[in-house]
């Protein structure tokens, strides 16, 4: 597996020539810390991470260039993704889109028009980042339990999840053998699947259900892929929580993520509230963007009591 550098080919191809030339003039350490490239109409190019503003003002044709390349000039192919406000690139990078929302008759989003800003999020593979997490989940190799990661956006949840899949699927320490992992990758973000091949190392014994809605994917996986562990990103809706509860009762370990700044916020989300009451999740792991993305801030047990000594004992 080749290591994916921070500004991979897919990203450079996406940028209009003047923008990519301007990006090239940046220092290496600045690019290294960049997590997002943001293009907003009438404003300068923003590199999130080093918080640089490049001396190029974005015009509508810049966004048009990026969008055309992004969709391969085929809007119909990314119709569903556009409704959700993002498009995933090969390589697992995700481009968030903001613009005028056109509603469907039934109230759902039909499409986005007059795109006003784009957020190019760089997917990162940080091998070894989920080692601690693997320890927490495996409880020092006794009985493994389901876990839910939560944290604010851009706190590194997906990166952790990706590396966790790799550790579990490869059976790296603290595990003693590879586990059969099913990765439900609704947004093609964790494995970065392109034409059926994961672009990131997600483990030898890992199967990827690409583009599959989580609730459906869990049933699918359970029925046909005999998983020991199911990994899914961004569980939020009540439907997801129901599927998770179902799964936990089926003897499968689940590792998922949810957006929430802290425990109080987490419990305010109805789906998560039900899940915590059912005590099916053995470990709730709070992820923080500080001091750097992917930091494990706190760990809670199934009753949402803080586990103090998670660093070394369970």
């Amino acid at each position, binding site marked *: 597996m080749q290591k994916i550098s921070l500004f991979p080919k897919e990203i450079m191809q996406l940028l209009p020539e003047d923008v990519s030339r301007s990006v090239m003039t940046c220092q290496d350490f600045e690019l290294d810390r960049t997590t997002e490239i943001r293009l907003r109409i009438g404003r300068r190019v923003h590199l999130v991470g080093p918080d640089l503003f490049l001396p190029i003002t974005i015009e509508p044709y810049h966004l048009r*260039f990026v969008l*055309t390349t992004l*969709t*391969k*000039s*085929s809007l*119909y192919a990314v119709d569903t993704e556009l409704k959700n406000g993002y498009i995933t690139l090969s390589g697992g990078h995700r481009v968030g889109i903001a613009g005028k929302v056109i509603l469907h008759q039934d109230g759902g989003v039909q499409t986005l028009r007059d795109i006003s800003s784009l957020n190019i999020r760089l997917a990162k593979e940080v091998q070894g980042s989920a080692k601690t997490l693997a320890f927490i989940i495996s409880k020092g190799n006794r009985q493994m339990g389901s876990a839910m990661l939560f944290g604010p956006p851009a706190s590194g949840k997906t990166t952790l999840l990706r590396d966790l899949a790799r550790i579990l699927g490869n059976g790296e320490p603290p595990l003693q053998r590879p586990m059969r992992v099913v990765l439900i990758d609704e947004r093609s973000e964790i494995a970065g699947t392109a034409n059926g091949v994961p672009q990131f190392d997600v483990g030898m014994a890992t199967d990827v259900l690409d583009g599959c809605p989580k609730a459906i994917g869990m049933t699918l996986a359970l029925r046909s892929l005999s998983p020991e562990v199911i990994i899914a990103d961004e569980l939020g809706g009540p439907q997801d929580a129901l599927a998770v509860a179902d799964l936990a009762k089926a003897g499968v370990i689940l590792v998922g993520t949810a957006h929430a700044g802290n425990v109080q916020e987490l419990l305010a989300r109805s789906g998560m509230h039900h899940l915590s009451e059912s005590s099916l999740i053995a470990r709730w792991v709070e992820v923080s963007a500080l001091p750097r993305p992917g930091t494990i801030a706190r760990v809670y047990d199934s009753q949402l009591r803080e586990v103090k000594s998670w660093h070394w004992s369970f």
Partner: protein
Amino acid sequence: MALVFLKWVGAGALFVGTAGFGFDFAKKYRKRPLELREIMTALRMLRADIAYHRLPLPESFFKISGYFSDQSGTHQLFAKTAELLTTSGTEAEDAFAVALGQAGEFWSLSAEDVSALRQFSRTIGNTNAVLQESSINAILAELADREKEAVTERDRFEKVYRTTGVLIGVLMVVMLW
């Protein structure tokens, strides 16, 4: 003796020339309905790729081009469009228009046929699957009409041009003998 021989050679060349000219004209009429049918087949494949597989245009165009012989205009059109679309920032409409211009020498379509295709290219890739499908259905219906008209024209003119070419050849040979 040599003079008589030269006379025969000249007459032969003249005849072959005019007859060939006639056959060439006739060929245009013969090929047009075939080519229209070929494009319609290709567009039906495109419709399936869009409506069912949601395949992006570059992949679909490239795949479809493989089904037609290298010398056909349909192959040229689809392969060239796919090739142009691999460049960042190229819109399908522009790529299709450029490819349409370049494929011109490979086929016998009328100017109206080409402009109908150009009209169709305005919608390509920039709506959802349902609308893409309906715009492909519309161009298919139009091409079907054109194909019928092309068949009638072929029946009427193919023979006319062929025999005219031959007859003019004979006439000139007789007059200049």
